[in-house]
């Protein structure tokens, strides 16, 4: 893509009442919306009005206040929207490649090519929910994840694009010569295939990655097409952007084959003063005691006797090498303490907005300036939007910031592409199997014809 036509890619990170940890207590939100499909339909329709590339959801197996399961949720959203991409987070440690390949293929068919997969290796220990003895280590998870993704891609490719014939006259429903076993035998998975659904409309749903550790960055450079990342400053984001893009060549890929989308968590109002007021209001709603407990656990230092207005140091905190999950986020917090020397209250408030993502409080024009600076300054290809309050924060972005970005020529003014790949300017992958028809499997005819 030429520099002059380069456009922002924008994703909305959906959540119940907002990304601020106290948003559910704010007067503008309905905390009852957590498992209410109508809430998510409404948010997605607003995002679609704003011509955003996609919506996305995080996932995990912990209880908290409960959440809908991503595939069921995104399929319901697919049926209620026409254009917007739908990105599900699915982890590779406690899932089966066959099920995951199949559900994404199904979502991609249902949405007519709008599915994306945010690949995570399992953000929190969940071994105890899945009859396993222990949560695998960071390195092992990435290794197994890579194999998992490889199996999934081969399953998607197990059907050639023109395998389904629907030839009523000659009685040929499926051309069996174009449906292949994959006969995969790896260290962690052994899968014969083929998949039981035709190749997804996009070839492969868009592959997204969100870990920013060293291993995560390499993983992204090797196989991701979008990367969500948490960057607290413009300079750090620039360094990250350059680092990740530079790794692509090693894998024979070009810079435009991976879109870097840092998190951006805005609080917007017509004037800066109003925005600050709203920010302050949210700070007031934070449960500082609970947040202190969580931060103590995270850092591995007891902060319970620490005054809210005393400065925090990272002395005695766990080193990044000592934590098993969310390594990059851990380092980000240590760096923040080192750089800004915050009080405990400031640190808690700083992380409350979006758990370590870049937060912004100001007017739509100020935000458009900031977005433009990052986009043109080699810090981002776009953003993963994390409004601190839903739905009003998203509405403000869509109705106030988007038109400004459009008038600056930075963002699309209509949807021109049906698929999520098309919107992101990504190529549809060739079927890696087409040239290799040596291992056909002789299906029971009955199964094909019934």
């Amino acid at each position: 893509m030429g520099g002059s036509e380069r456009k922002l890619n924008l994703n909305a990170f959906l959540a119940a009442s907002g990304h601020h940890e106290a948003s559910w207590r704010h007067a503008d939100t309905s905390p009852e919306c957590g498992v209410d499909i109508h809430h998510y339909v409404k948010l997605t329709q607003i995002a679609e009005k704003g011509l955003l590339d996609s919506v996305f959801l995080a996932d995990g197996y912990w209880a908290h206040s409960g959440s809908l399961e991503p595939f069921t949720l995104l399929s319901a959203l697919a049926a209620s929207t026409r254009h917007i991409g739908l990105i599900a987070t699915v982890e590779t440690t406690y899932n089966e490649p066959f099920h995951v390949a199949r559900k994404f293929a199904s979502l991609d068919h249902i949405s007519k090519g709008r599915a994306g997969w945010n690949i995570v290796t399992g953000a929190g220990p969940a071994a105890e929910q899945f009859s396993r003895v222990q949560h695998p280590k960071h390195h092992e998870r990435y290794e197994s994840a890579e194999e998992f993704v490889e199996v999934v891609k081969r399953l998607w490719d197990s059907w050639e694009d023109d395998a389904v014939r629907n030839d009523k006259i000659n009685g040929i429903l499926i051309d069996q010569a174009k449906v292949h076993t994959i006969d995969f035998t790896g260290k962690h998975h052994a899968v014969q295939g083929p998949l039981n659904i035709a190749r997804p409309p996009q070839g492969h749903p868009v592959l997204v990655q969100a870990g920013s550790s060293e291993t995560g960055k390499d993983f992204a450079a090797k196989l991701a097409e979008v990367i969500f990342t948490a960057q607290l400053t413009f300079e750090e984001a620039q360094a990250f952007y350059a680092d990740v893009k530079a790794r692509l060549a090693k894998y024979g890929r070009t810079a435009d084959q991976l879109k870097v989308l840092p998190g951006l968590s805005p609080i917007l109002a017509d004037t800066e003063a109003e925005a600050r007021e709203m920010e302050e209001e949210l700070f007031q709603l934070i449960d500082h005691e609970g947040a202190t407990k969580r931060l103590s656990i995270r850092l591995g230092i007891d902060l319970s006797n620490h005054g809210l207005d005393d400065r925090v140091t990272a002395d005695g905190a766990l080193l990044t090498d000592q934590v098993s999950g969310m390594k990059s986020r851990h380092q980000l917090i240590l760096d923040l303490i080192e750089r800004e020397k915050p009080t405990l209250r400031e640190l808690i408030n700083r992380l409350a907005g979006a758990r370590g993502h870049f937060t912004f409080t100001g007017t739509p024009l100020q935000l458009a300036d900031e977005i433009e600076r990052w986009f043109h300054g080699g810090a981002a290809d776009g953003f993963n939007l994390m409004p601190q309050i839903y739905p009003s924060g998203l509405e403000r972005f869509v109705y106030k910031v988007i038109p400004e970005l459009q008038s600056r020529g930075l963002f699309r003014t209509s949807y021109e592409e049906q698929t999520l790949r098309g919107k992101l300017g990504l190529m549809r992958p060739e079927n890696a199997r087409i040239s290799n028809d040596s291992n056909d499997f002789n299906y029971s005819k009955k199964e094909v014809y019934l």
Partner: protein
Amino acid sequence: MGEANRKVHLNVFLRATGHHAGAWRHEDAHPELELDIDYLGQLARIAERGKLDSIFLADGYAGGGSKLEPFTLLSALASVTEHIGLIATVGTVYNDPFHVARQFASLDHISGGRAGWNIVTGAGSAAHNFSRDEHPEHAERYETGEEFVEVVKQLWDSWEDDALIFDKKAGKLVDSSKVHEINFKGHTYVVKGPLNIPRPPQGYPVLVQAGSSEQGKELAAKTAEVIFTAQQTFDAGREFYSDVKGRLAKYGRSADELVILPGLAPIVADTEAEARELEEELHSFVDTKRALDGLSERFTVNLNDYALDAPVPLDKAKPAEEFNGIRSRQEVILDAARREGFTIRQLLYRSNGGHGHITFTGSVLQTADLIEKWFLNHAADGFNVLPQLFPTGLEIFVDKVIPELQNRGLFRTEYEGATLRESLGLRRPANTRHLQQSI
């Protein structure tokens, strides 16, 4: 429920083109829309127009066909319908109870209490797609399946119904004393819980069971709320009905807590002659040799070696006990062939049309008569309807057979309840965890 206000329950077994093996070649069929959600949504809305209780989908993890995956499909259908129940088949052998509990809870929340789970152990080996060496034996599958369902129910109950309190002032979103670990340790599964989603609107999605072997019947009597079954004759249907209903008391359950729905694969037209003509047309689309290959696999006898009008070589068929697939279906087919002295052609036609379910070709009135006869004589509480051709077979059923049943006072004229449980006249289960604690 009293006999007087007992009503027929109807489920449609959804397929894109039809249950007849040749349906996809018929001019009314749309094989090219197999994965098209707009078309499938249209079918679901036709069924909803007919006030049917539910739609249902079969499933499997191996084989060469191309179909949408049940949770994604039913969730999308939930968005384009308002009343109809949505029953997904999910096998226990190659799944994990936490994922399954969660996906059904999610579908139940998304649909406002319309989810149902057709529990199968996993017919047909899919071991090779899941890093396993072999498909477990029939008995072991049932044992593991029972434990699986127990874990899933405990996970659904891990949130008390009133665990979410949303108290903005006090800063309390969840009453964590009402969200419990389950700490399940069984033979196969070890699951700590709690689930990561609040209790489903229905308490539990409706539990459906489709196996009709001895073990299957016992399991159904113990845990199922709907049973899909393949019964070839009215007499066999009555026998099965009283057998299964008779087993309920042993588990402290009453007869109306289990809804028995035999499969019925109809070809309906305004007149019997037209229906017969359509049936002939559908048979003409099936490649006889291929279809016999399929049946031969099931019977372990090469039927292509015999004349089409010769009797089925029953003495050569493998007995059901040695069969490690859908054992009850094997019995049903053998039984029918034995009892009715089927020729190979008759067996083939029966198999083409309803893959072992009762097939029926006739007029609108004859179809209504059949349903009424089975229903009033306690051979069925309703039917799992398998139209042999979609969409036209579903349309004629909804637009002609349903009104006839309504005229006879046998079927609802409006949806009365909001949930699938309410449509089926089933109670919402109490939270067992809550009961334990209050003791």
